[in-house]
């Protein structure tokens, strides 16, 4: 098989299986959360039941442009993940992700609802909080492997995490912001009745909410893929270690989600920038001296 066919197969596998894995991770997350609260919790396939229901509800939207904006958001999120899993440019993928979030922002502000407008504003603040760390992560990968291409990053002799533990810590920290989990679930919350209703998703209902959920699942999968990228090296066994690492990180996110209350946006930015500067920035300085 030539390289093109393999890439096509990977792309199709990603588009088909990523939402399945993302949905299952969501279901596992909800069950673990329930057990942490001494509840039985919903069935494992609950996220899929929810998605099925949302798809069957009568379409409802405040502005017709919302449908287009949400679909574009989903498209760009899929494209971002596709680029990462196809071994393409990491930096470009991260810029695409920012573009995707812009479409989500517009989908929220076109409605004219105060709640979704505040949620959308907070989503931008969240971007401000995590974007420096995402860029430093890309730069650190470049310094270590000499390339922005994910295919080159994962084919080193030693796992990148050995050189960049500080960057890894910072990346896991901002993952909580990116995945909108407590204490940084300030733009929207998985839990109801918060002070801004559902924040950025307030005016997103029925099919559009299904699109949002799907995008969230794709996002979870490629974010976990990025976590795995820290561990994978030339040795095929490292993939197993990477999957385990991704699971541990996901469990950690759920643990943090369940054991903390939402913080103010100012504190979020201060915290994330401090962690980014100290852990990722410090690590990057050391790397620059090492690799000159």
């Amino acid at each position, binding site marked *: 098989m030539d390289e093109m066919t393999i890439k096509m197969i990977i792309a199709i596998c990603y588009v088909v299986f990523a939402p399945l894995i993302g949905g299952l991770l969501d279901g596992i997350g909800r069950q673990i959360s329930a057990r942490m609260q001494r509840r039985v919790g919903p069935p494992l396939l609950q996220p899929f039941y929810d998605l099925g229901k949302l798809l069957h509800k*009568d379409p409802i939207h405040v502005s017709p442009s919302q449908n287009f904006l949400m679909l574009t958001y989903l498209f760009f999120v899929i494209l971002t993940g596709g680029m990462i899993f196809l071994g393409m440019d990491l930096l470009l993928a991260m810029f695409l992700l920012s573009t995707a979030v812009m479409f989500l922002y517009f989908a929220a502000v076109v409605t004219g609802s105060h709640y979704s407008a505040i949620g959308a504003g907070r989503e931008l603040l969240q971007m401000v909080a995590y974007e420096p760390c995402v860029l430093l992560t890309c730069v650190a990968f470049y310094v270590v492997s000499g390339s922005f291409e994910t295919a080159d990053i994962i084919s080193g002799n030693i796992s990148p995490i050995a050189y960049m533990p500080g960057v890894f810590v910072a990346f896991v920290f901002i993952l909580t912001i990116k995945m909108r989990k407590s204490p940084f679930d300030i733009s929207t919350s998985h839990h109801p009745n918060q002070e801004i209703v559902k924040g950025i998703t307030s005016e997103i209902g029925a099919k559009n909410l299904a699109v949002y959920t799907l995008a969230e699942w794709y996002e979870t999968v490629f974010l976990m893929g990025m976590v795995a990228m820290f561990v994978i090296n030339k040795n095929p066994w490292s993939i197993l270690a990477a999957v385990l690492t991704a699971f541990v990180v996901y469990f950690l996110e759920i643990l943090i989600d369940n054991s903390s209350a939402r913080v103010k946006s100012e504190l979020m930015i201060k915290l994330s920038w401090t962690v980014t500067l100290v852990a990722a920035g410090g690590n990057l300085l050391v790397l620059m001296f090492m690799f000159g």
Partner: protein
Amino acid sequence: MYKITRSPWVMHYDGSSCNGCDIEVLACLTPVYDAERFGIINTGDPMQADILLITGSINTQNAPVVKQIYSQMSDPKVVVAVGVCACTGGVFKDCYNILGGADQVIPVDVYVPGCAARPQAIIDGIVKGIGVFQERLEKLENGTLKQEEKEDTEEKKEED
């Protein structure tokens, strides 16, 4: 035919009441009763809700609010009246500002009695509501739901 029996998202509104039922609704979500076992989620957003849970009676001030919440919900939708106040107006029935139960302003599908309604009864009411929800969904897909709604509103207009 798609079966939706496991994902009822609830929007809770408390009208004119002593807040007893209000607290019992929240009790359903606690680890003791764990309504999420049935996929029940208490969402604060009418656009994302399937079931409107009303506690407390309707007065002249909250009538337009209830109507608006109901109109913002996407079809198919179900209304569950929880507690005797939401069913009939209850102990407040003869007050000067009370219109009566929730069915005075919007169509109610399931009535859950009690003062206050017990969490078991509330969960039972929501599960009954899922049956109605499934029926509506089938009608929505056949295209008969909108027509019936239209006829209902026309009948109501004639009555007025």
